[in-house]
């Protein structure tokens, strides 16, 4: 059981990393990216291939995975920079599917649908399964923490403010003289690097990846995590990821209680529950567990008092 809990904690950490990455692209910049799992796959395959076939050290593979995912993110962002809303959703969704098709068919590169197995993990042999899981939990926790701090800094920097500006009104940001395209591309580059990191860590942890693992449902899980925690809010992203993994895993324990459903039906029921949870959150709890705080610029006291007075006056007129 302890073994299982540690493995779940690692999964939660990997989800948290993805949620933090998505928070920059979607939460801050307001760009929809339904191809999340595609970037995750790029990261996983890059690191796995480099360490397996070229004998790179794991750290090198992980860094390369972040760079490659980031570059792919830049390309996707550049191509879709003029697309709005629905079109961006379709293109990013198609991107992830195309990635999966490529992984399934380029057998020389990615071993097709059989996937890659025997991906090395740090000190897997020396530590034994238990020690390895604990070590990996430490690595994932540190990575999540670093990313969290980076994200927090980003959110409070002028760059983060500009991104939120794009989310709320792109035109205003443009009028203010910001290069919107560049900001969007940067947001995608940063977020995709985090997604790639999550993919690479996942591969090194489970030692096996295959195209089937990278299904669109994973994108939905991370979206669910972000929405549950509160979009645009880094604490919420981490908390949401933990909540989603907890929820996903707890549905696993419900199934044995229903002896009349088959394995396929059980899996279907789980996915139904997850989709229903997402629909309920989308409909009724759009703010999430921790709503994003609207930051007010610091004003001198005199100005603050004047604003208050004005507001009171407006309220009077309204009444």
């Amino acid at each position, binding site marked *: 059981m302890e073994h299982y809990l540690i493995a779940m904690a690692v999964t939660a950490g990997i989800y948290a990393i993805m949620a933090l990455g998505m928070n920059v692209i*979607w939460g801050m910049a*307001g760009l*929809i990216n*339904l191809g999340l799992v595609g970037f995750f796959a790029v990261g996983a395959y890059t690191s796995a291939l480099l360490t397996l076939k070229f004998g790179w050290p794991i750290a090198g593979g992980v860094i390369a995975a972040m760079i490659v995912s980031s570059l792919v993110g830049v390309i996707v962002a550049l*191509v*879709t920079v*003029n*697309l*709005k*809303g*629905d*079109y961006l*959703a*379709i*293109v990013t*969704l*198609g*991107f992830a*599917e*195309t990635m999966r*098709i*490529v992984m*399934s*068919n380029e057998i020389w590169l990615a071993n097709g649908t059989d996937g890659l197995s025997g991906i090395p993990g740090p000190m897997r042999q020396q530590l034994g399964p238990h020690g390895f899981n604990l070590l990996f939990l430490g690595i994932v926790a540190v990575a999540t923490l670093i990313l969290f701090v980076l994200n927090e800094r980003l959110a409070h920097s002028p760059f983060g403010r500009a991104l939120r500006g794009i989310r709320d009104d792109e035109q205003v940001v443009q009028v203010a003289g910001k290069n919107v395209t560049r900001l969007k591309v940067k947001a995608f580059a940063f977020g995709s690097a985090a997604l790639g990191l999550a993919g690479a860590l996942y591969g090194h942890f489970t030692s096996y990846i295959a195209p089937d693992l990278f299904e*669109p*449902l994973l994108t*939905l899980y991370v*979206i669910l995590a972000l*929405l549950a925690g509160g979009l645009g809010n880094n604490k919420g992203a981490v908390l949401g990821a933990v909540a989603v993994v907890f929820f996903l895993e707890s549905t696993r324990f419900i199934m044995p209680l229903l002896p009349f*459903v*088959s394995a*396929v*039906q059980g*899996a*279907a*029921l789980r*996915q*139904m529950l*997850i*989709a*229903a949870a*997402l*629909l309920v959150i*989308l*409909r009724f709890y*759009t703010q999430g567990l921790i709503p994003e705080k609207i930051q007010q610029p610091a004003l001198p006291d005199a100005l603050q008092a004047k604003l208050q007075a004005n507001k009171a006056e407006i309220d009077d007129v309204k009444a």
Partner: protein
Amino acid sequence: MHVVQLILNGLMAGTILALPAIGLTLIFAVLRFTNFALASLMTVGAYAGLVANISFGLPVYASLLAAFVVAGLVGWLCDEFVLKPFRASGFITTAIGSIALTIALENVVRFVFENQMRGYKLPLRRDLVLAGLRVDPQQLDNLAVAVLVVLVLTAFLMTTRAGKAMRAVADNPSLASIKGIDVDMVARIVSFVAMGIAGIGGMLVGLDTTVDPLVGYKTILSVFAAAVVGGLGSIPGAIVGALVVGVGEELSLLVLSPAYRTAVGFIAIFLVLTLRPRGILGARAY
């Protein structure tokens, strides 16, 4: 000759693709959002037809009607109770909501019918050979069904009151509303008709291949490609787009492995959005 055969196959596949693409484009034109739930409603239609055909022993053409009605009803109910509240909170919420909905519906189907592939009860027929070209008679039937659906839909949109109201709302929702058109009612009719047509499309795909819970999901990228290539919101565009994507997918076999067929749709979306974002016949894209 090989190329001509591929083009012919592509046109056949394209006509089937045209139906769900029309459904998607209809919803986009009137309700202004892309409904990803279309994938699962194709599946619902395919299974409704399957139940009518296998369990109730109805002939295939009567079963197509069942596919239309069931997919239409489910589509309307889902729109009314699930998607409609999302539309007020913007396209991202609606897009994600419709994806969640499609996964939920697909798994309802999986829960009931499980994963195995199924087929309709069809008479075995020999391929027709004409001037060295091979055609499966079932494909000809499918073509006839698709053409018939398009004709009926066109007549509906052009002559009936509900059809005209739909076009008015697509054109300018606030003006239509001022003129006394019940916009909510139009939304219901659109959801029913569009998803019903998608359901027929799903069953035609099933007739062409086999039916399993992923039948809609496997086609959805091509459907989106068809609608985007033709121009989202334009019905003639959806037909032209579907034919282009159908032929493109078949012709890709000349240079790519068959596994990349679905990627062709994505490439088509990509090309159109970079070169001519409003599509072949569309009016606006962004």
